[in-house]
């Protein structure tokens, strides 16, 4: 039984890392613009599908991954420029619906480009399982964990160490004041969308060898990422990371111990409980009240 638990934990942390990256993307955009971007999951899907397509076209993995990430960043910037910017100052409901529209639109594009089939990516370094203390770990899981840790550390350093990162935080805290001290809020907004699109794409490329990808793959991932952000305290980037891992572990435990069919229900039930009893998240929320 303990080995089994450990196995669930490993699975949970792997999938949770993915939720963490998507949740981090949510938090970045929410901070910069007060918008919850329901197209976040589609960034993940676009990253995975583009990388698979480029790989199939004969490009080496690294090149395919870089191009796929850059293309997704481009999509994120276009989304900001042509869907979010024109609706500046709109109500919460309006922006939610705009980003839902964007998500459906991107799904539609993917459907036209790649059809309804499932696609998968070859694991980065083979698929011979590694035994760690009674649990079987796929090498790809280690890739997911490793890259996630590096990405999260980079984002953290970006906010804490660089002027640009601090400027972005300032925007999140008080947009008018940020503008007053000479920060170009528009540029910051684009930065946030580009950054979170890139994070999403990388998450997609990392997970593609483990789960199959299709034009619809982003829907549930996006929702889980949003859940991670809520559990962590919306607008709190590191909270979203912790929330994502927590959600992944809970889901894996639920799937293993209760029923795999109900794992999504368990995850959302947990999110509902958090919303009912601790709506500002389990890990504190950012200083400015945004509700």
């Amino acid at each position, binding site marked *: 039984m303990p080995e089994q638990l450990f196995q669930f934990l490993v699975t949970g942390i792997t999938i949770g890392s993915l939720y963490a990256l998507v949740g981090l993307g949510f938090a970045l955009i*929410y901070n910069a613009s007060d918008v*919850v971007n329901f197209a976040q999951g589609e960034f993940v899907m676009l990253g995975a599908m583009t990388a698979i397509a480029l790989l199939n076209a004969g490009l080496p993995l690294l090149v395919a991954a870089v191009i796929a990430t850059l293309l997704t960043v481009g999509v994120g910037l276009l989304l900001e420029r042509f*869907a979010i910017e*024109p*609706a500046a100052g*709109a*109500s*919460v*409901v*309006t922006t*939610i*619906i*705009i980003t*839902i*529209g*964007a*998500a*459906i*639109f*991107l*799904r*539609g*594009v993917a*459907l*036209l480009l790649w059809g309804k089939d499932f696609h998968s990516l070859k694991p980065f370094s083979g698929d011979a399982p590694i035994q760690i203390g009674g649990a079987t770990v796929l090498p790809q899981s280690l890739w997911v964990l490793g890259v996630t840790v590096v990405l999260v550390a980079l984002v953290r350093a970006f906010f804490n160490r660089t002027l640009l990162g601090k400027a972005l935080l300032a925007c999140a805290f008080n947009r008018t004041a940020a503008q007053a001290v000479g920060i170009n809020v528009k540029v910051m907004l684009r930065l946030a969308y580009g950054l979170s699109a890139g994070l999403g794409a990388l998450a997609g490329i990392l997970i593609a060898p483990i789960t199959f990808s299709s034009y619809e793959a982003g*829907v549930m991932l996006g*929702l889980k990422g*949003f*859940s991670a952000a*809520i559990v962590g305290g*919306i607008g709190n980037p590191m909270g979203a990371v912790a929330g994502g891992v927590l959600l992944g572990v809970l889901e894996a435990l639920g799937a293993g111990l209760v*029923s795999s*069919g*109900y794992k*999504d*229900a368990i995850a*959302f*039930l947990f*999110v*509902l409980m958090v*919303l*009912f009893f601790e*709506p500002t998240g389990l890990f504190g929320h950012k200083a400015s009240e945004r*509700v």
Partner: protein
Amino acid sequence: MRLAGFYAFAAAVALLPALFPDNYFVVVIGASAGLNVILAVGLNLLMGYAGQISLGHAAFFGVGAYASAILTTRFGWPSLLALAAGLLAAGLLAWGFARPILRLRGHYLAMATLGFGVIAHVVMVQATHWTGGPDGLAGIPPLNVLGWRVEGDLQWYGVIMAAMLLAVWLSLNLVDSQVGRALRAVHGSEFAAQMMGVDTARAKTQAFVVSALFAAFAGSLFAHQQAFVSPDSFNLAVSVELVTMVVLGGLASTFGAVCGAIALTLLQQGLVVFEDYEMLVHGALLMAVMIFMPQGLFVGLTQAVRRLGSALVGSKPPAAA
């Protein structure tokens, strides 16, 4: 005349099959549009008037449909009794869920209703013993209204249109009453509404329950009309479609919701041939309407016409609300 628009609409609905006899498009697509109108008008009470978003409304549609399906096929209940049970179940579920959920606002409310919808869908898929799982439930008997078995496209058109007109009439009445004004007040300023003596939590709960009842009603009819239900009809995409209908026509306008529902039904039918493009168009449409005409097509156009009209008459145009 308060209900002039309603009577004109009812006359059009009644005349359509007479003008186009034996027309598959009119009776079948019309019935499908009618169900969507019931759903959209109900959701509009919550979203448009009370100002509370719901991204999980397909769940209540499903509760009504499955209540009718399960009770008639497995327990042999008469269809009207099953319909009533579906309404009761959806109403109770909405009521129990409303109190904790409607304290939330904006994105939190969106997440909570979304989670609710996903959970409901998972249960429909997983509770195979009751719901038949992903394969759904077949063999639902026809609707039996006091001995009259509703059969054939034309009869169904009649039943669904009557139900739809009832829904529209109820909605129009509700909005133009003190209950409706209290709801709109909650949307306009929750502070002021409370200070006028409106129990805002109760008002929101009422809106949530009523819109759930509308959805469950449509669900029961849908189950009997199709004689088959499966979870696919009640998933997240359907919830999003319902929201699309409401915002497409225009929030806070009953006829806006009617137009949105009809427009989206027609659009989907028109795109059936280009099935792969449906998503693309649906997504683009949602974005475009929200960016360029956030008050919705119907409301936006009627305002434009009114402005044009008063410009021609030469009087002062009313300012947009």
